[in-house]
């Protein structure tokens, strides 16, 4: 890719609308493996891209595009568990 990935890890929950990032890893939060598995099946695997399409009132939930063909809704708390690297264009 001609785009640069930033070196710093940030959480998906901290992205602004329309920012794109590359997934690095998913932390295990209070939901443990259930959430990890679920997120993986929804396309949250290392190297895949994510983009925040919009946030609702007070920032949550987020509407996120994962890869090219999947769109999901996720709460702020869960989004905070997903670590990504921002794509600098």
């Amino acid at each position: 890719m001609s785009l640069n990935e930033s070196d710093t890890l940030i959480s998906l929950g901290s992205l602004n609308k329309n920012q794109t990032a590359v997934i690095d890893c998913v932390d295990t939060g209070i939901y443990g493996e259930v959430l990890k598995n679920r997120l993986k099946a929804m396309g949250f695997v290392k190297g895949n891209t994510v983009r925040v399409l919009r946030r609702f009132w007070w920032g949550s939930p987020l509407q996120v595009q994962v890869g090219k063909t999947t769109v999901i809704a996720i709460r702020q708390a869960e989004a905070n568990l997903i670590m990504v690297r921002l794509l600098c264009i």
Partner: protein
Amino acid sequence: MQTCHSPLTIVTGNARKRIALIGQPNTGKSTFFNRLTGINAHVGNWPGITVDLLQAEIVFNGETVEIVDLPGIYDLKGFSEDESVVKDFLSNFAIDLVLVVINASQVDRQLNLVLELKALGLPSMVILNMADEAKRYGVEINKQKLEQELGIPVFLISAKYGKGWEGVLTAMGKAIKEQENSFTVNNLNDYFVNNPITDSQRQQILTDTVIMPSEDVKTFTDSLDNVLLHPWLGIPIFFASMLGIFFLIWYLGLPSQDVMDIVTTWVGEQIIEPVIYPLPEMVQSFVLNGLWLGVATVASFVPLIVIFFFVMAAVEDSGYLSRSAYLMDAFMAKMGLDGRAFVMQMMGFGCNVPALMGTRIIRSRPMRLLSMLIIPFALCSARLAVFVFIIGAIFPANLGPIVLFSLYILSFVASFAVAFVFSKTQQFQSTEPFVIELPPYRLPTFKQVLLRGWGEVKEFLRRATNFIIVGCVAVWFLTYFPENATGLDTWGGQIGVFLSPIMQPIGINPYLTLSLIFGFIAKEIVVGSFATIYGMGASALSAQFALTINPSSAIAFCVFCLLYTPCLTTVATVKAESKSWGFTLLSLIFSLVYAWIVTYIFYHGALLLGFQ
């Protein structure tokens, strides 16, 4: 002993060969299943399995084969409730063939499930569904290559529009014919701990066989989302569409209930009455006011359920229902629920019964039970009829609408207050994280919607009929005996008198208590029962009410009627949907206690305010 043994056990003698459908949620499994089985599907009986599984028998080359639609799962080794169900199923019931249904446009992330099944060695076929959408997104899949690398036959189809259908059918027939053994799968998780599916394995296959679009594709869905999920427009549009649906049910569904009532009344009067005429009076009354009333009650719900699920299926298939979860999440999350529960609560204002059935869209059981706990507090149309009568008889015309509106507000507040409190308890705390897919907007097809309505009615009849008829017979007993007794002299009336130490403090006299006992069958009956209890016609009754019941008692009666035990059909549905007597009893007892407390507050509040 930890080995690399396959966890498969060969079982011989599956009397009837069995095909299971497995796939992620929303991949079109049900659509596939419906196309395959038409209207023959029914809920099967699988000992030990806690959710309803649809199954059907179909004939391939003269051989009858059983096909089962398993719940949507993300991952075979997952830990969610649905994933446990699938695991239980696989370990207890032998399978001859698995069809893995995949959304072709999302093959990149759904391939894992295929790899897991392949690793287990279960005889499988891969159904890449939604070929039409994959094409629109520009996802290209090299089918031959994929087949080669997986060693499993692959079919690119569209279950909704029928593309590629013949090919799948032929292949299924052939595969099932050649399949001699049946398999169960045990200790699946242990197996995957020792033999994990690696990301590189998956990545390799994807690189070889799939080209995902390289650019973001601007779709119709994006444009529509910009409006429907707009931070400011989204909510008003949502409420407007809820209102629209509500009115649709109101103007189409509820009158259909009246039509059914006319039919059953006619049958009762013109056919049953003449036939049973020679029998003793008591038997006649039993048949007509017990048994037949039960049948009529069941029948009156049939058209309503059909119409409700026509509408729901359309909303669900369109993709808007999951959007509602997004829109209402901020508000609903505080009560341990999500937007889907909100939609069902709104629908409950039309009729509680289909709304309860509709909670099936909520996958997490604690959350679903919580939603089912509060739906009966929604002011349904039947209660409305009672309130309109009482308010009309007791309050001046200018106050009426305000009282009625306050009852709607109360219904709303009372429901969500319960959710708020109960969601803090362990039993009702949802353990599922909130991550849901927002599928593209789709046009529902007529056939899909029709099949859904039909299926739901069949289910309702199967599960609720007996319960409702038994309930009607029980109430008949209470209100018929001792023979020739009327009003407070019947057993039911005596219960009303007996309960007066409890009911007087909340302003409800024994006559009204007796009508509430009738109301257990259906709230519509309450108004009719006044006539029987007081032994007078409607207009005389209004006058009598105005004289004998003061406004505070009227308010108390309405509030109690709103919150106490819902109608028999609702209770039957709670039981059928929760599959738990414990929960059903909790729901019953809680609503009685809750109704009493809230009524107490309102009654004494009204007294203090001077509504004598």
